[in-house]
């Protein structure tokens, strides 16, 4: 059985921010599950990376968290995007798109284009 790849280092933060932006406040498991679903279950989210990352983003002020009740009335810690986090998401999205566009251009280029 082939190992599912872990989320690429550094991109997880962006995915977390995007998920929270899209779906509103979420708990840890919810974020992990959504990321896996959106990737079409190609990626797995390592919990050993996820929780420290959430703490880091919280320390940086991009997200905030508080205890709340989940849909099936379980006590859970909910993370939500802050204003600063939204700004960070925009900036990083822009950067990422730019990088992706450059990479895409490299892949699409053909020898005769350069002649």
């Amino acid at each position, binding site marked *: 059985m082939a190992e599912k790849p872990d989320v690429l280092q550094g991109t997880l933060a962006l995915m977390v921010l995007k998920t929270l932006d899209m779906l509103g406040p979420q708990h840890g498991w919810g974020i992990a599950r959504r990321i896996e679903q959106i990737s079409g279950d190609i990626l797995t989210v*390592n*919990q*050993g990376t996820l*929780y420290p990352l959430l703490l*880091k983003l919280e320390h*940086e002020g991009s997200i905030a968290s508080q205890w709340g009740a989940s849909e*099936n009335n*379980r*006590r*859970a810690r909910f993370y939500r995007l802050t204003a600063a986090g939204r700004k960070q998401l925009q900036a990083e999205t822009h950067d990422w798109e730019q990088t992706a566009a450059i990479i895409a251009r490299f892949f699409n280029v053909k020898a005769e284009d350069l002649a």
Partner: protein
Amino acid sequence: MKSLRRFLIRLANFATGQRADQRLGDEMAEHLAFQVDENLRAGMSLTEARRQAAIKLGAAEAIREQHHAEQSLPFIESLFADLRYAVRMLLRSPGFSLIVIATMALGVGATTAIYSVIDATLLHPLPYSHPSELVHIEANLPGVGARDVGISIPELRDLQNSGIFQYVSLSFFGTNDLTGSAQPMSIASKSVSPSYFAVLGVDAQLGRTFDPHDATPGFNLEVVISDGLWKRAFGADPHILGKTLRLDNDTYHVVGVMPASFRDQGQNSDERSADLWAACGFFGDPAPAPMRGTRFPFEAIARLQPGLSPQAAQGRLDALVASLKKQYPADYPSQGAWTLHLTPLAETLVGNVRRSLILLFGAVGLVLLISCVNVANLLLARASSRGREMAVRQALGAARMRLIRQLLTESLLLFVLGGITGFAVLFCAQKFLLQFVPESMPRLNDISISWGVLAFAIVVSVAAGTIFGLAPAWLTSRLDLTATLRQEGRGSNGSRRRSRLRQVLVIGELALSLVLMVAAGLLLRSFWDLFKVQPGFNPTRVVAIETSLPNPNDPKTDIYHTATQEAVLLREVLRRNRAIPGVEETAVSDRAAIPLGHSQNDRRAVPLFREGQEVQTSQPPQIDTAVVSPEYFHLLGMTLLRGRLFVDQDLETTPLVAVINQAAARMYWPNQNPVGKRGRLGGLGRQRPEWITIVGVIADARTESLAAAGIPQVYLDIYQRPAKFLAFYLRGQVDPAAISAQVRTQIQAVDAELPVFRAETLDDVLSSSLSVRRFSMEMVALFAATALLLAGLGIYGTISYLVNEQSREIAIRLALGAQRRNILRMVLRQGLGLATAGAAVGLIGALIVSHLMAGLLFGVSPYDLSTFGGVTAVLTAVAIAASYIPALRAMRLDPITTLHSE
């Protein structure tokens, strides 16, 4: 910004010990529950759902650890853990820790002590604002070999108008008699041109200083006094301003009091502790008319325009000199080659002690290096006993870098504790230690153990700890796991490497201490030679006591204006002094004639015009003069070589006569008999100086400096040439403590307004003239002794270690019938081998160092064979003695117990 916020939160969490374990635990439980729910929904059984959920979550402990790492600052946390561990290790072997801390305290303490002196003198020599703008201006006549000939008033004005300087000032150091209080006092004072304080950029704490634009011709009868004098003589009177002072029978007004922190600048400690400043234009009474050729032998200092470098200023000054020469060719004859030379003021102040201080800093640096090497050696020795501990830690998964970090923390703790101990001892003992610093050291009063010095001590200990802790940590953590665990490190690869490093370290230590010992030996020899040098005069049982006659600005009010007037006083005081019980001989001279007197400032070189040679050059050579009474030569045991000495018949009314020393005869009347030759001594006199006939030649005496023989000197008769600053000499069986009061009574019985001060035996004067040399000699000798002790300990430790390592081999040899004598010899040979290698390396270093310090030596070659040989012998002897104890232990080894214990 974001990362700063993150760091601060983590720091706060770390500091408050806040942990997020509970929160994470809850979150994980909830996470698991969600996953189980999902798995159940996917149709798993409950057990399977839980199992799969746990698998998906991964290692809970690892998550917790990573989470905690994010919550707090893991680096600092482990540092604290290391520190805690280091403290425990330190307490577990208190003997070892004590030795290491004491060694480092010695090294860092000594280095810091010397640094504090250097900090005050070399690094901050001028306690004024923008000290780099301050320069000293020296006028030279290289064409006739005359230096520092002084500056005339028209030249001063040219300098002031040149645009190179903000302010230029002349100053003249002397003493004044302050009368009117209970006891007449002699006050160290400076006559300064009004811009003096503007040059230094200082202001008064009370009242004002002089107005730089003040243009008084003579003294403007205003004085500024020091805080010290204000408190001493006037009880810190808040209404002092405007009060009058009687100085040399003239009346002055006090216009300002300088702040307590103000120290004057100057070449010697007397000058730097000046207590009074009087403003003078130097172109009216008592000074002669302002002629371009009338140069004052005064000190000229100036403040450069902001941003102008001394080099650039020198360039502009050279241009000015060239244009002045063109404009006034008669005043600057071409053979004199008049030049003006700028020197940063800081350099002129510390120039004479710089070399000594650098030598001391070098010596103390070597001591520090040796202490570090010694400690590194001790750390390596301990490494062998901790091999098992390191192996176990590595076996349990500790990374090598982590082990090195921990070991480094341990050694840094020891080094820093040592450094702080050294600093603390220094801080507590600073009063005591400062007594040993010679008084002639510039800025002695400003030497202090400050924050800067503490920072220096800590930086030095941390740097030393890092450098010398790294190698032992590296080697301690590098080991062959299985071998070490199996046989406790004995004979393993790492231990062999360690023992090689230890030998290298000991060789280095021995070499360094040899260098220091050679330096100390050479200085000791120089000092001894200086001490034993025949000074050419006999200082024993002679006391010199100073007084000064008032020198009022108007010569008409001077009751001691002529030699005849003064002679009455002198003869009466001499007669009374001779009557003091125990006194055998008495004499009097001016202050410049005090042999090796510290007032070098009184040594005034004056131009010497020789009869028959004046046609060639109008720029005569400069010669030192002294004014003495006829008994002076006999009292000091100076021998007459030719002609005669002064006699009672030489009076103001008879032709002027002079006695010169052999050096002057050799230099100015070579290959001829100078007796009967005539010359003129120039000076500030307004009339043409009179002819003086040389009547005698005396043997050279080292009255200027013990290290310098044969400085040309001309002596004049005090009954022909009056002098204001006098020293009375008494030879005989007198008590130096009581004599001062006795002589004061006698002098003041003749004139109650004369101050009497500074009674010193000539032996004391002679010995304090060597004070800087003695200080550096003693310090270097002390450092060398310390170095030798440390090196001895180092070689002892290393040989003991080697014997320990080889105990099995020695036991086998003994069991097989080896002679115990041979074992002893074998161990001693190892010690001797180290000593030889150390000495060889050290001798090369010593040759370089002794070459560098040649300028500090006297009478001994920097490559003095006996010093080098003697020092090498001492070092070898110490090395053998230090190896002897472990060698004896090796010899007495009991083969049976040793082999059994293995």
